């Protein structure tokens, strides 16, 4: 497996502003082909619909996330991308009046099947939210390991796990001397990487990221993007983003969502460089070329 994809990505991200999106993504994903990457787990959505009470928010989305790939979901606000990502790990059902239809298969098994323990699903499909949300009453170390406590999982060697997760989320060097400090003292970007470390500690097979950088400054955003690229070597990632540059920099595949007043739909999906260079749908082209959205 190629390891220079990440360095290619970071160098690409530095010069991204001057290049076209297609060039950026071509640099990024040229060596990666799904299927050759036997890591993480595949996630597949089949005919997913979502409702909020009477409001039909998402219509008939079928999308296959191959193991070990990064898929970006792009599209204008209100097109159902966030709703979609939340149906994947069953966070959608917390909204009163929510309903859905279709199937979500994790390693071939429907996560909505009768008698499934939903907490086990969420352990396997982790999530990082828009706003960094560490638990303020816990220290940095406790935050990272909080998932173990919450799900009552026993870890063999907590210190190793703690270090591993913080290293993978790119935060280790910054916090290794103050693991007992409260998480509130970290900057926004550090808090978000802490949340990523927290999500990683329960060893999920898939990581969902719902606009993880939208509340962060550009510098922190780049650091998170590096982390994502690094993580993609070992885990399946789905990321919702408003930022097309970001989609181009980090993802292997891109799916474009749009709502024409009715429920949100997926317009098209494909390898990221194709979506940005020669999309098959006119609406996608309008969006990626910045004509609307």
């Amino acid at each position: 497996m190629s390891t220079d994809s990440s360095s290619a990505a970071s160098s690409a991200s530095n010069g991204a502003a001057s290049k076209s999106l297609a060039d950026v993504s071509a640099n990024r994903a040229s060596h990666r082909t799904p299927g050759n990457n036997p890591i993480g787990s595949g996630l597949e959505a089949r005919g997913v619909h979502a409702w909020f009470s009477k409001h039909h928010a998402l219509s008939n989305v079928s999308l296959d996330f191959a193991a070990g790939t990064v898929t970006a979901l792009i599209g204008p606000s209100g097109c159902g991308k966030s709703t979609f990502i939340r149906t994947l790990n069953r966070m959608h059902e917390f909204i009163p009046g929510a309903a859905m239809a279709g199937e979500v298969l994790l390693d071939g098994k429907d996560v909505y099947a009768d008698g499934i323990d939903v907490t086990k699903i969420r352990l396997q499909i982790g999530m990082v939210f828009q706003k960094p949300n560490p638990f303020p009453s816990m220290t940095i170390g406790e935050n990272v390991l909080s998932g173990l406590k919450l799900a009552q999982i026993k870890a063999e060697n907590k210190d190793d796990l703690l270090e591993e997760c913080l290293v993978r989320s790119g935060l280790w060097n910054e916090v290794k001397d103050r693991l007992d400090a409260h998480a509130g003292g970290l900057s926004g970007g550090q808090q978000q990487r802490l949340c990523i470390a927290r999500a990683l500690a329960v060893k999920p097979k898939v990581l969902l990221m719902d606009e993880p950088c939208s509340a962060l400054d550009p510098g922190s955003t780049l650091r998170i993007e590096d982390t994502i690229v690094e993580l993609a070597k070992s885990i399946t990632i789905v990321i919702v983003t408003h930022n097309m540059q970001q989609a181009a920099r980090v993802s292997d595949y891109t799916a474009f969502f749009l709502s024409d007043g009715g429920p949100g739909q997926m317009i098209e999906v494909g390898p990221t460089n194709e979506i940005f260079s020669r999309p098959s749908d006119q609406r996608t082209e309008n969006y990626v070329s910045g004509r609307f959205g």
Partner: protein
Amino acid sequence: MSTTEVKPLRPWAITPKQMIPSALIFSGSFFITLLVLAFTPLKGKLAFVVFFFLFSSLANTIYSVRKRGRKALGETVAASLIFGGSLIVFLPVFSILFTTVRKGVAGLHLTLFSQSMANASFLDPVGKGGLLHALIGTLYLILIAMIISVPMGIMTALYLTEIKGPGSRFIQFIVQAMSGVPSVVAGLFIFSAIILTTPIKASALAGAFALAILMIPTVTRTSQEVLLLVPSDLREAGLAMGATQWRTVATIVVPAARNGLITATILGVARIAGETAPLIFTLGGADKINLNPFKDYNSALPFYVWKGLSLGTPESIARAWSGILVLIVLVLSLFIAARTLGTQKMKK
């Protein structure tokens, strides 16, 4: 679109099939509890509830642990405790309502609402005399307390929401502190500030003063909540048309909050209708009808109950129960009125 055939589903909702184990657990515990009560010396409704709760939580815990593993243990035990705690809280409420109705109805009689206790004693059999004097006294008390505290409460709320003067945070704090003044202290205050100091002696008026002190914070806080719900663009619209603040408040803000302000008043009345302690110092306590609220001793429903309770004979206690039934019906209807107005407001 072809999406019309797809039906919204809630796969996370509990299906009837999933409810079968729970139903089995609960009916099983029910029968075991019956057996335990039948074959052991433990008896009574309370024992039934306690054992039913213990057996069903135990069975539920074992079932979940077997099904979902050890991590369900804490979850189920916590849920059982939370549910059991709530049960303990709601049992007395129903016991209180049930007892009041059962014992109160026994004391109802023909002359209850047509006579006072002028020609009867609390120790007489229940058929004699009535609580008309107390009902009239309570109406006077409520009316006068309303006349004092509704304008004061609403004005204070207007100060907190419309003027937002430099002291409003402090006043907010004071109003909150005032709502914690014990009712007995309010009574003592009126006794020492009015009855000892001014020509006003123990009467419905003095009693109403004491009740008003308790009512003002309730009216203020509820009014403040509803005034805050009035959208600020309504206020700005008024001011932008060149209206004075006074005209804006009087013609736009207050009418928009009208239902809520009425609710605030009703809640205030419900707060004071059952107060006994302050009346002990301020009302005097008469046994006959006194139509003059400004002079001479008067009575009130809670006072009537209190008198019956303190005399302690079976007849007087029967009178107390019927008095409390009348009082509870009054409080309950006020409460329902406030709720209905409140929900109407929200639906709009």
